[in-house]
């Protein structure tokens, strides 16, 4: 029987996750993940109070540190894998930048608008191809790593997985906070949390919401060095498919730049691009969106503030 996956907007200004927990009838102890906060993982008292239900923090960041301290070969292999992923990300970015430069160079030519529109579709397809290739290469690296290292058979990992399995099985839901998206993703993978959480409601926000989708897209229109292109980081867990989740849009997206939004959403299509601001709630069961209150970025560059989950 499908269990709900709930994507929420940021919770750092005010916590509204407790309302969703209440609506779903979740009053028992939840399993809380704040691994995205890294070293601040334990600093969860205010969050737990705001959630209004008992919680046990799974301490995935600390557990991962214990694993790496105890299992040196795994630590070194993990480091090498991360190094390789960083290289791939850099090379993918170089290709994206050149594709973007080419698209721009073509877009300013003085030719018929129809021809420019056709050329833009070619550019969109090139972007998509780069995104797909990058995602495939990341997946291949993870698969190879997992095949080689059989994480579940590493004694320290196995011990933590057993402990975590008990904690999760006794929980009414799994709640995943935001934070450092790559760090969170890696720790969830290391301990197979999504596997352990099968059949449980999962609530997540910000980085937590991003990792539940099928691809994690990094974005920031106001980086300190001027401007930046959105980029795919890696594959997520795919509990939610065909959604690109964009948390905290007011701080990260040039919301009035309709042309840029159109370029982005066309590149991401057919996935729906959802901006999850404070107060946003998307409840999904299986492949159905049961309830939606978020902002949809449309392929014409508009922001549909009334999106309610119908569609995409």
């Amino acid at each position, binding site marked *: 029987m499908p269990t709900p996956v709930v994507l929420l907007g940021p919770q750092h200004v005010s916590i509204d996750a407790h309302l969703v927990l209440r609506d779903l009838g979740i009053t028992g102890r939840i399993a809380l993940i704040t691994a995205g906060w890294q*070293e601040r993982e334990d600093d969860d008292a205010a969050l737990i109070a705001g959630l209004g239900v008992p919680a046990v923090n799974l301490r995935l960041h600390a557990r991962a540190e214990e694993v790496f301290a105890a299992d040196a070969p795994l630590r070194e292999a993990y480091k090498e894998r991360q190094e390789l992923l960083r290289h791939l990300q850099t090379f993918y970015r170089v290709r994206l930048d050149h594709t973007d430069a080419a698209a721009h160079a073509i877009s300013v030519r003085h030719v018929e608008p129809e021809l420019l529109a056709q050329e833009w579709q070619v550019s969109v397809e090139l972007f998509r191809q780069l995104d797909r290739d990058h995602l495939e290469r990341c997946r291949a690296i993870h698969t190879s790593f997992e095949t080689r290292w059989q994480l579940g058979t590493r004694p320290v990992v196995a011990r933590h997985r057993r402990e975590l399995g008990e904690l999760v099985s006794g929980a009414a839901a799994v709640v995943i906070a*935001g*934070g*450092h998206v790559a*760090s969170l993703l890696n720790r969830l993978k290391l301990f197979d949390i999504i596997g352990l959480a099968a059949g449980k409601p999962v609530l997540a926000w*910000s980085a937590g919401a991003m990792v539940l989708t099928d691809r994690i897209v990094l974005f920031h229109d106001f980086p300190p*060095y*001027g401007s930046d292109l959105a980029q795919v980081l890696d594959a997520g867990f795919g509990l939610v498919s065909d959604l690109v989740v964009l948390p905290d849009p007011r701080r990260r997206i040039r919301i009035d730049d309709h042309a840029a939004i159109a370029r982005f959403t066309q590149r991401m299509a057919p996935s729906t691009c959802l901006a999850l601001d404070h107060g946003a709630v998307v409840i999904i069961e299986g492949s159905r969106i049961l309830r939606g209150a978020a902002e949809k970025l449309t392929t014409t560059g508009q922001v549909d503030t009334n999106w309610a989950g119908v569609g995409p």
Partner: protein
Amino acid sequence: MTKQAVAIRQLEAGPRNRETVDAWVACHSFPIVEGSAITFVWRGDAEAVHLKHWVYGLPSSQQLQRVADTDIWYLVLALPPESRVEYKLEVVRHGHGEWIQDPLNPNRARDPFGANSVAHGAGYQIPEWVRHDPSAAPGILDELSFDSSTFGRRGFGIYLPRRFRRTRRYPLLIVHDGHDYLRYASLATVLDNLIDRLEIPDMVVCLTSSPDRLVEYASDERHARYLTDDLVPHLERLFPLDAQPQTRCLMGASFGAVAALSTAWRRPGFYGRLLLQSGSFAFTDIGDRNHRGPLFDPVVRFMNEFRAEPTAVSERVFVSCGTYESLIYENRSLSPMLQGTGMDVRFVEARDGHNWENWRDRMREGLSWLFPGPLLLIYE
């Protein structure tokens, strides 16, 4: 006089007794900025007053004129928006000129030679990230020394981020003239703030200084050897550094930028990041004589050799230069050449001169582009 210089015209048009002049001075801040018109003012008795500045393209000495029947001297310059100009006033009395800071202007910029007055053009603001932020945890500064095989005993400064942990691995930034960057370009404060805002990662910063910089920084093989074979290995033994090209950066301004580029050129692939500010990248298109003097001869030899066969010596290179420096031409021509090698290059110009606060103001963009912080990865 530009039409925008209203304030000085009002003074000239009205009654010019001591009280009205006092009142006029009291109700303005100096220099007076009115759109693109900057009115420099000095008050006192003198035979002549000159504005002395280092804006390449303008006469470096310009005479102020006196408002009749007053002790007010003024000069109106048209400065493009967001300009920042360092200057002094030369007051001539009894045939002798004395260079002074502008007593009516509280803005000062310090450098190893003292301090200059600073005119802020319309729209220029001192970036807020160069000011001390009490919420940003300060890094730890220390002075160390070691015995190098190249230069014998040498000292260097070190900056460690506040959250420094032995169990982590850090990028390494080596800053030429690092102590001057600390003193005159607020380097420690900038690092504290950018790290606190997640705009750059926690990093270990090494501050080098040379007792003979004009020789050692001018494409001297010994300097490349000192950095690469002595200092970096020593730092890698002392600190948990990532020890990868892409997490190793050389930074410098003026001759320090030449030292950074020429070191990377001698050790291609070792330094994956370069931050080059107002580099003294003198070159010649024909012959080997340069107009900047013999100190530049080794620089010209290096640049001519590099220009003859440019190669990708690093991965990412951030180049900045002031448009009011004579070096703007060399830097403008350098950037496309670097780009042509396949390196990822960003070139930034600012309406500023060859000075420390120009270099300070460009650090955020340069450092965050070379070392993007976790900002892009954090979604709270």
